[in-house]
């Protein structure tokens, strides 16, 4: 799917994105006017639990539940408007264009299919390969995400794998489709730090070598500041600060500063930990 505009248009444009849900007293906006443009880079999104990070990611890939309403001045992938795209265009985009690793892997995996079957299915939904080829490639992908015994894990059902194995299975499913834009929602939160760094190195390589764009949603500030290029800080449905990742420690917004201060430290730890005193004006 190549056309003229796809070469010059940014990978993703998000302007005034809003997501709302019906509540007892009218509609509540959970994403309230998010703006950013993404190139072939690693963009981190951090922010309070419930601030709308996952809802932003889901709106981009089209996984907002039916009760949710999305509006945007512009929401475009390589110049194609995602809100007005035909179902066929959307399927195409979701098949090989945009991929998303959802926040909870075991909840998102199909409980009735083995891990291997699901990766094979993800592969076959966008390329034509023979059964044995698909199996081989799925095993390779499991190995790539540092699963020690791919053969055993291939045949396990989601409830038979550990948290971190499920998370890596999800990542394998997404990567096997070779997306140009990957939205990874807490993709490594269940991984031990050694494997976590290895998995990030794979994503890093895809950005550097294949020019993939990456939206990396995470609560781990240390990881985001060491891994990403740029970070958006969300609070109550809005982006309250944007900062170069390596300078996260110099953040200005009191919410970001407070967040950095709450983290337990291996050295000079504090009891009790400082907590955030949320200010009403942060949410306006």
């Amino acid at each position, binding site marked *: 799917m190549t056309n003229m505009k796809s070469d010059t248009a940014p990978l993703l444009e998000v302007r005034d994105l809003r997501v709302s849900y019906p509540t007892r007293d009218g509609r509540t906006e959970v994403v309230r006017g998010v703006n950013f443009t993404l190139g072939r880079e690693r963009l981190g999104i951090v922010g*309070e*639990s419930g601030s709308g990070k996952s809802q932003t990611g889901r709106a981009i890939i089209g996984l907002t539940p039916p009760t949710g309403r999305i509006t945007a001045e512009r929401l475009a992938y390589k110049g194609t408007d995602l809100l007005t795209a035909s179902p066929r265009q959307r399927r195409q985009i979701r098949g090989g264009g945009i991929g998303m690793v959802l926040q*909870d*892997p075991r909840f998102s995996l199909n409980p009735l299919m083995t891990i291997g079957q699901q990766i094979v299915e993800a592969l076959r939904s966008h390329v034509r390969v023979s059964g044995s080829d698909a199996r081989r490639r799925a095993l390779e992908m499991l190995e790539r995400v540092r699963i020690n015994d791919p053969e055993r894990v291939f045949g396990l059902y989601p409830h038979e794998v550990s*948290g971190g194995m499920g998370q890596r299975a999800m990542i394998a499913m997404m990567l096997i489709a070779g997306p140009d834009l990957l939205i990874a929602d807490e993709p490594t939160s269940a*991984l031990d730090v050694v494997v976590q760094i290895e998995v990030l*190195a794979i994503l890093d390589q895809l950005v550097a070598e294949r020019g993939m764009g990456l939206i990396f949603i995470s609560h781990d500030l240390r990881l985001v500041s060491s891994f990403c290029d740029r970070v958006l800080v969300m609070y109550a449905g809005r982006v309250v600060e944007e900062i170069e990742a390596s300078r996260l420690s110099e953040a200005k917004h009191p919410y970001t500063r407070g967040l950095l201060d709450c*983290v337990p430290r291996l050295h000079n730890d504090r009891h*009790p930990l400082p907590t955030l005193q949320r200010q009403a004006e942060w949410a306006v």
Partner: protein
Amino acid sequence: MSDLHGKSGTGAPVLIADALGVDFGPFRAVDGVSFEVRPGESLGLVGESGSGKSTILRAIAGLAPISSGAVRFEGKPLGKRREKAFYRHVQMVFQDPYGSLHPRQTVDQILSEPLAIHRIADGERRIRQALDEVGLGSGFRFRYPHQLSGGQRQRVAIARALITEPELLLLDEPTSALDASVQAEILNLLEEIRQHRRLSSILVSHDLAVITHLCERLIVMQSGREVETLTSRQLVAGEVTKPYTRELMAASEGFRRKEPVPA
């Protein structure tokens, strides 16, 4: 490290695991792990993904088989089945807040269930207090899990575990889905309850700083086995003996981009 160091850890152990082994068919998920948890103590489990940490907690809770060795709770060996009362005294918070909350139950129903099962009176007050303790306002009480963010679900799971006032809490990555500020609130809450009620716990986490913050001692695991057992003080001081533990400590510092190899 926890302030409780010194104050806790006296008295007969609440829980003893003696060469605990867990098999799933031919696969040995936990291979002869031994430890004890003393009253008011918090024991940490860290290590490789898939090394059997969750399985240890599940075996204690009766959700995975004890294939070899033994586990004793308050002196009594745990068999195949657990009495109802056991679950009042031992509560677990699962790794994924999504799977562990019933999708068709409101927060209110989720919190009422353990109260009904254990015939605990005073439900209304306990529910309000539990929601308050985990920082969820009353506006969340009648929501369903799918209407909550990841962190909000995990707070509901923690509230549910605390509502029966257990002696032993099994915490599987309780804060990995939470932002730093909610994590700090939950860690402070757990510490407070611990001091208050001499609550013992086993905490699984990938975050070494979270472990050393809450636990006196920790076990490092790999491939179903114990690599080494350390005090948090030893870990912080870098007094570790095994290469795997060193690797974990190095990786904890964050991502390091390798310099591109010159052509």
